[in-house]
């Protein structure tokens, strides 16, 4: 399997406070195409920081993040924005949908940024909405969708641009068991059907159970890397 993401001796040290915080402390890790992996650990172990570094939302203090053979930590901010747009999908804990746009408009928002045509947008969103099972709610705004439905739209948005991989930060934290189960089923199916690579930062046991690989973090270091059969 081809390596999609790789980190080499990755460090992120916060020095804003009096106490130096080593949020990521020398991580060497790689994810392959089509993986469905979870980065887990207690609060403050560096999960979100690692995810932000992998997604180019933050820059490392030292070390590198290599995606498809390119060290993205050396990118200018402008190049990084373009790179994120075309290669990375994000799913956030609080869904973060744009309240004034409908479910469809939210999902195709990223395709507008990519200057895709109306026909391209329609075809892709129709396909994704069938997959996430919220047909009939396309023209509804987020405020009138349940948490589970909103997160499904957020997943559709993350996948709309056909990214190299999807980073999901605590995507199930605000969902009940039923919605979590349904969402994870959808993500697993998309992982298999679209060969989309999913990397979660989570401490949700339900996600950990479904993940094919679980990376355990503690104090900014990988303490265990488990690949399930």
């Amino acid at each position, binding site marked *: 399997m081809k390596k999609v993401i790789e980190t080499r001796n990755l460090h992120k040290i916060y020095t804003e406070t009096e106490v130096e915080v080593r949020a990521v402390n020398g991580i060497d890790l790689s994810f392959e195409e089509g993986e469905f992996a979870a980065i887990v650990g207690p609060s403050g172990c560096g999960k979100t920081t690692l995810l*932000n570094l992998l*997604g180019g*939302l*933050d820059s490392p203090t030292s070390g590198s993040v290599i995606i498809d053979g390119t060290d993205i930590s050396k990118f200018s901010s*402008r190049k990084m*924005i*373009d790179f*994120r*747009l*075309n290669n990375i*999908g*994000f799913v*956030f804990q*609080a869904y*973060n949908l*744009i*309240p*004034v*746009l409908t479910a469809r*408009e939210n999902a195709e*928002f*990223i395709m*507008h*940024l*990519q200057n895709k045509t*109306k026909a391209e947008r329609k075809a892709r969103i129709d396909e994704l909405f069938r997959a996430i099972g919220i047909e009939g709610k396309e023209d509804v705004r987020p405020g009138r969708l349940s948490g589970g439905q909103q997160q499904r739209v957020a997943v559709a*948005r993350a996948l709309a*641009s056909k990214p190299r991989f999807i980073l999901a930060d605590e995507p199930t934290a605000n969902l009940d068991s039923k919605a979590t189960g349904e969402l994870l089923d959808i993500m697993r199916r998309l992982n298999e059907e679209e060969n989309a690579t999913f990397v979660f930062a989570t401490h949700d046991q339900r996600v950990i159970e479904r993940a094919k690989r679980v990376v355990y973090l503690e104090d900014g270091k990988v303490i265990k890397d488990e690949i399930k059969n």
Partner: protein
Amino acid sequence: MNVIRRKINNLNSINIKMAWRNIWRNKLRSSVVIMAVTVGLFGGLASTGIMKGMVMDMVQNALENQTSHIQIHNKKFPANNDVVFLIDSTRKIIKEIVADPGVKAVSQRTKTFGMASTAATGVGVMINGVEPEAEKKVTKIYDKITEGSYFDSGRKNRVVISEKLAKKLNVHLKSKIVVTFQDYDGNLTGASFKVEGIYKTQNTMFDGQNLFVRKAELDQLLDLPQGTAHEIAVLLEDYNETSPAVEKMQQQFPEYLVEGWYDIDPYLRLTSSLTDFMLFIFMGVIMLALGFAIVNTMLMVILERTKELGMIMAIGMNRYKVFKMIMYETTMLAIVGGALGILVSVVFTWYYGKEGIDISMVAKGFASLGYSSVMHPVLELSDYMEVIAMVMLTGIVASIFPTVRALKMKPAEAIRE
């Protein structure tokens, strides 16, 4: 509003859609800003319209009563109005001028300073010798007659004076006035004239200084050579053509001084151009104040939407598109208010431009400056275009500061807000 909403919803541009819908996320706040822009623009446009209307009225009155569009003089005459500085062969000149299709009418005048006296008092005046029929086609003093007529009797030695002069000299219709002045040779001369008509224009200063007699009679008293005059007044078909017409006539008659109304009465030009400048300054100040209000609103918006902005920057919206998104919203806010302000101003100007606003209660002072006591607000298409451009510019400029604030956000931190 529903039609606009439907049209915007059907637009392909997600940015415009978002901007429009975002405006209505906080209806009260947006309505307050829109109202501020509406009232501000209306206030500015209405005041400018009134000011402009007054000035145009004043210019129109001045052109209609005396100045006309173009005047031709002996080059030395305007310096001291000495009667010896004449235009020769006036008939020939007038014939040539009238041949131009852009010319509506021409009249010739004899002018001299003198003293108008009655048993009661004496007043220094400008004595205008006119050819009544030709003058009627150029100026409208005949239309301002309040008593008597404008040389309709055909009798000799008749004078038309203003109400103001009549009051000063304590005369009525058919009263006699003795007018004295220096003739062509510098000798003191004069004659007695009977009041045939009394006029009143909106310019009390003009009224206090001008009386009219027949040119032929004045020429005789002044002992002027045949076929001469001090002034040839030209009325054009189109007032906007004054400048090229002046140039053309100056080339045609290089030995004389040809001037447009704006050179004859620089005060008219100054007031007229000052009004245009005032619109610019006035609206500029209003737009600046409104710009600050919009900036303040947009800063609140940015603060409220930190998380949302963090998300869209995280997923790949670049700086230019963030600027465009905020600019659309800011400009739309300004445009909605601007459109309403302009609409109200158009209705106001249209209605009161026709009906007029009577300010006769306070108009006495205005009249001495040549302003009418009934104001007719006037705004031209170019004024509205200027204001529309200013509104757009305000929207764009007002979006810069909030955008800078938005772009300073770090997406990862903003999402966690």
